[in-house]
C-alpha cells in the first residue's frame, strides 16, 4: 500500500467556555475559517458535558472534520469553578485523521500544563500569544510535518505527524533483506550500533540466519533491527535465491511493457557486469517463461540467460521487488494413512513429520531443521504419504 500523503490541516482553533457567552472560538487560524453559525452547529461536541471531557472527539461537519480533546481544569479561582477549553484541528472530511489524533491529545496536554504552571490561558497577557502559537503550528505542520514552538523557559511544544503505516511483515530466518536504494546512502551513523554492525552484510544474497552468524550478532537482535529498517522502508524482504525456486508471473508484468522508465531500470539492473545490455525481448522472454513447475535451474538450462547478458539472480530479484513475479512456495504435507505400521518403516523420515503439517514451506523447514533443500526434497520424494502443494 502506497503511503498516501496525510491530508493538510485546514484550520486550528482554540475554543473555550466563556462564563457569560458560553462556548466560543477565541482564536483561530486562518481567521474566520469557522463562522459563528457553523460553530454553533457542533459546539456541543467541542465543549461537551462532563462525561465526554478528556476524550478524543471527532465530528464530521459539512465538508470538514473537527478533531478535539475537550479539557477541563477545576479550580476555585475560575468564574464557574472550572475552566473548559479545547484546541481543535480541522481538515477535510476525506482525510484520514488517525495521524492527527495523537497530536491533538498532546497539544491539549501542553496547554493544560501551561495553564496549571503559570496560568498561561487565564492571564490575558500571555493568552494573547495563543494565535501566534496556532499560526506557527499550522504552517509548520503543513509544511514540514513537525514543529517545535518554544513557549517559556520550561515548555516547548514539540509535535510531529507520524503517517499511518501498517506493521511491517515479520522477519524470519530464511528471509533475505535487500536495500531499496543505494546502500551508501544509508551508511552513516544515524543507526544504532547493532544495525551498523549488520548493515554491511545486507546485500540481497545473505539470509537472516547467515547475517547473524557473519556479523556475530544474536539472531533475534538481527531480526529486530531488520524489522526496524523494514518499517522505515529502507530495505525490503525477498525470498532467498535458490536455483530450485519457482516463480510465476503476475499481471503487473504489463507495467514493464508500458513504463519505459521501469524498462530502463530493469535492463540496467539485470545486465551481467561488463556485458552489453540485453534486449527487452530477452528479458520479457525469461520472465514470461517463469511459471509453476519451472525452477530457476530449468530456466537457466533452457534459455541460458548468461548468453543473453542477463544475470538470473538480478532478474529474479528485480521481478520480486517490483512485484512483476511472485514466488511459489512448496508445502510438503504428510497425510495420515490408515495403516500405522507403514510409517514405522522409515525411521529417518519420522522426525520430519511434525514439520510437514502443511503450514511450513520448504524454506522454513530447511532453516528449522538445518537440512539442505536437496536432502529434504529426497525425503519428500521417498515418502509416498507426503503430498506436495505449491502456492
Amino acid at each position, binding site marked *: 500500500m502506497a503511503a498516501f500523503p496525510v491530508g493538510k490541516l485546514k484550520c486550528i482553533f482554540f475554543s473555550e467556555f466563556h462564563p457569560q457567552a458560553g462556548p466560543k472560538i477565541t482564536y483561530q487560524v486562518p481567521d474566520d475559517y469557522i463562522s459563528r453559525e457553523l460553530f*454553533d*452547529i*457542533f459546539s*456541543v*461536541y467541542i465543549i*461537551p*458535558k462532563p*462525561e*465526554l471531557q478528556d*476524550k*478524543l*472527539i*471527532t*465530528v*464530521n*461537519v*459539512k465538508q470538514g472534520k473537527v478533531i478535539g480533546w475537550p479539557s477541563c481544569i477545576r479550580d476555585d479561582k475560575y468564574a464557574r469553578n472550572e475552566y473548559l477549553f479545547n484546541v481543535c484541528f480541522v481538515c477535510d472530511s*476525506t482525510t484520514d485523521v*488517525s495521524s492527527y489524533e495523537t497530536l491533538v491529545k498532546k497539544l491539549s496536554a501542553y496547554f493544560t500544563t501551561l495553564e496549571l504552571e503559570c496560568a498561561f490561558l487565564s492571564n490575558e497577557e500571555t493568552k494573547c500569544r495563543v494565535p501566534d502559537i496556532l499560526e506557527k503550528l499550522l504552517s509548520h505542520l503543513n509544511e514540514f510535518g513537525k514543529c517545535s514552538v518554544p513557549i517559556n523557559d520550561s515548555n516547548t511544544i514539540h509535535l510531529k505527524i507520524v503517517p499511518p503505516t*501498517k506493521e511491517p511483515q515479520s522477519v524470519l530466518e530464511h528471509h533475505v533483506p535487500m536495500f531499496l536504494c543505494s546502500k551508501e546512502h544509508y551508511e552513516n551513523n544515524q543507526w544504532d550500533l547493532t544495525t551498523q554492525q549488520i548493515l554491511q552484510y545486507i546485500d540481497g544474497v545473505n539470509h537472516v540466519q547467515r547475517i547473524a552468524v557473519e556479523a556475530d550478532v544474536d539472531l533475534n537482535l538481527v531480526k529486530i533491527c531488520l524489522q526496524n529498517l523494514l518499517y522505515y522502508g529502507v530495505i525490503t524482504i525477498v525470498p532467498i535465491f535458490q536455483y530450485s525456486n519457482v516463480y*510465476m*508471473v*503476475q*499481471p503487473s*508484468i*504489463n507495467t514493464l*511493457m508500458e513504463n519505459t522508465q521501469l524498462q530502463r531500470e530493469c535492463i540496467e539492473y539485470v545486465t551481467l557486469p561488463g556485458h552489453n545490455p540485453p*534486449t*527487452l*525481448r*530477452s528479458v*520479457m*522472454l525469461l*520472465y*514470461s*517463461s517463469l*511459471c*509453476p*513447475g519451472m525452477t530457476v535451474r530449468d530456466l537457466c538450462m*533452457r*534459455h*541460458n540467460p548468461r548468453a*543473453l547478458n542477463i544475470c538470473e539472480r538480478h532478474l529474479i530479484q528485480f521481478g520480486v521487488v517490483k512485484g512483476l513475479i*511472485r514466488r511459489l512456495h512448496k*508445502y510438503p*504435507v504428510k*497425510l*495420515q494413512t490408515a495403516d500405522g505400521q507403514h510409517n514405522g518403516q522409515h525411521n529417518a523420515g519420522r522426525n520430519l513429520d511434525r514439520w510437514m*503439517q*502443511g*503450514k511450513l514451506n520448504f524454506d522454513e523447514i530447511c532453516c528449522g531443521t538445518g537440512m539442505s533443500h536437496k536432502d529434504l526434497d529426497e525425503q519428500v520424494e521417498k515418502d509416498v504419504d507426503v*503430498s*506436495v*502443494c*505449491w*502456492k
Partner: protein
Amino acid sequence: MSSKVTPLSIILVSSGSKGYRLLFRYPFQAEEQQKLVKRDQSDNPFALQTPEDDAYTSSTSQSSTRQSCIISGELDNVLANILTPSNTDLCDQRFEVTVDDVKFVGHPLLVQDVNAKWRANSSTREGSTINMFNVVFVLQASADWSLVHCYQDLSKRLALALKHEEKRCGYLSHQAVIMVRAEDEVAGQPEDCKESPFHLMLHRSKLTQDLRDVYEGLHTNGIARVYINNWIEVSFCLPHKVHNVSEVITIKHNGIEKSLGAIRPYHAMLLLEDPNTLRASLPRDCSPALHRIIHIATPLKRLQQLSQDADLALSQVFQLVGHLVYWGKATVIYPICGSNVYILSPNAPTSPGTPLDFEFRMKFGESLIKVLSDFSLPLPLSDHRNRLAERERPEGELIRIVMWLLQKRLLIQLHTYVFIITNPTLAKKSSSDDLEREVSTPPSESSPVTRGRATPQGSGSGQGSGLGENLSFDSDEYSVSTGFTSFDSYSMEEGRGHPRRKVLDMLTEHLTKEEKSSVLAIPHANNPEDIKLFARICPYLRGMHHLEEIMYYENVNRSQLYALLEKFRDVLVTCSHQDAASVQYKEFL
C-alpha cells in the same frame, strides 16, 4: 469472524417536544453481569471491549478486556444528547461522531413537518411528538470510511422507511410511545427486581424487533432484511462481511461496481449456494427472470449462452448476475472447460484437518490435500480428467470438485496473454534459435477441437439441476448464434479488393513502424491467410487480453490461434498469469 466490520450496537434516538431520548438500543443483555466487572476495571466508559471469542482479541489491543459503556447504559442520556444533533443543519446528511474508541454513524432525519399535519387529525396522542430521529450504528473508531458509508446508507434506508411510515400512519410515534411506556413501567418497579426496559420493549414493539433483526443479521451473515411496519422492505448487504474480506483489505468505495463492470459475455456464473436453497430464500416478489436464471445457470455455460437459454436480453443477464454477485450468492468465472489451467490460490489451506478438508472428505471421500497437490501444477483440466480416470472416478466428479474448489476460492485460473515485442536484431536472426523455441509453449492441446463446431451446444442446456453424471466438457469453442464465420469463408469474401492493402492498414493502425516491419519480415507473413488473421488479432497484442477473450471477440478457435502464435513466435511473447481484471475482483469475492 470479522468483528471489525460488524456493529457493536444499534441505537435509536429521537428528539422532540420532550427533549432528546434514547429509545432503544441493542444488544443490552450484557449489562447485568458486566456492570460490576466494569466499574473497577474501566475508568473510561468509551473504552471498548470486544467479546472473548472474537478473533482479533488476541491482538495487543490494550482496551480489549473492558466493557463498553454504550452497552451498559450509564451513558444513555449523554448518548441521546450527542446523537441527536440539536441543529437542523446536521440533519438529512451523513452523521459521524467518534469518541475515543467508538464511532457513531447514522443519518438523522427531521419529521416535524409531517408530524404537524398528522397531529392535527389525531389528537389522542399523549403530546409526545418526535421532531427528529436517528438510527445509529456503533462501530469501532478504526472503521474505514467505506464501511462508515455503508452503515450510513443502511441508516438512511431505515430512516427513510420510518419517516414514510410516520407520515402515513404515525408509526414511529406510536412505537416510541410503547417504548417510553415500557421504560416508565420498569422505572416504577422496585429496585431489586428490575429487568431491562429494552427487554420489555422487545416483547411489545415491532420496531425494536426489527432493529434487533438488523443487528443480528449483520452479525450472522452481513445481510439485513426487515419489513418496517410489515410494509416497507428494507434490505441491505454489507459487502465487507458478505464477501468474507479479511480484515486487512480495504474495499474501495467503488470496488464492487468496478468488478461488476469486468463481467464479460464469455464469463459464466458459479452459484455459491445450492440453487434450490437460494431460490427458496428469494423474496416472494422478486423477478421471475431471477428464478429462471438461477434454475438454468451452470458454470459450464457462458453468460451469452445463458441469455439465449433463458430468453433474456444479455444486459438483463448481466444485471441479474451482478445482483447475485453483489449479494454474495454467486461469483463469476471463466466457464469450466478442458483447456482451462488452474493453480492453487495463495490462501488455500494446506494443512490437514481444517474445516474445509473435513467438508471435502464428506463430499468427495478424499483428502483435500491430495487434490490440492494435484492442482499444484498448471495442467489443463482435460489432463486432470485423464488422471482421474485412472482412479476410476466418474467424469462428472472432476467438474464437481473443480466447482467446489472454485466456490471456496481455492483455485485461481491462469490465462495466456500475448505481447508483441520485436527484436532489434531480428533481421540477422541466426544464433537465437534455441531462445525462440520457448516463445510459445501452448498447453498440450495437440488434438484440435473437433466437436465444438458440430454439436449444437444448446442441446444439453435445459437441465440445470441435474449437475450429475452427464456433466462433461469438451471445448470452449464458441458457436456464436450469428453462425460460425469460418476464417476461410471470411477471407474468401473479403479477399477480392485489395486484401494486402487492408491488412497493412490494420497493422499500421495498431503497431509501431518497427513492429510492423518485423512482422512483415517473418516468412509466414507472405501467406495471405496468416497475415490476415494476424492483422485481426493485432489489437490484442499488448498483454491486456487473454487468448479466450481474443477467441471470443474475433471468433477464432483455439487451434487456429495457437498455430498463428507459433508461426509468428519471433515477434511475440506469451505469458501466463491470473486474469488482471479478476485480481482486484478476487480480493473480495
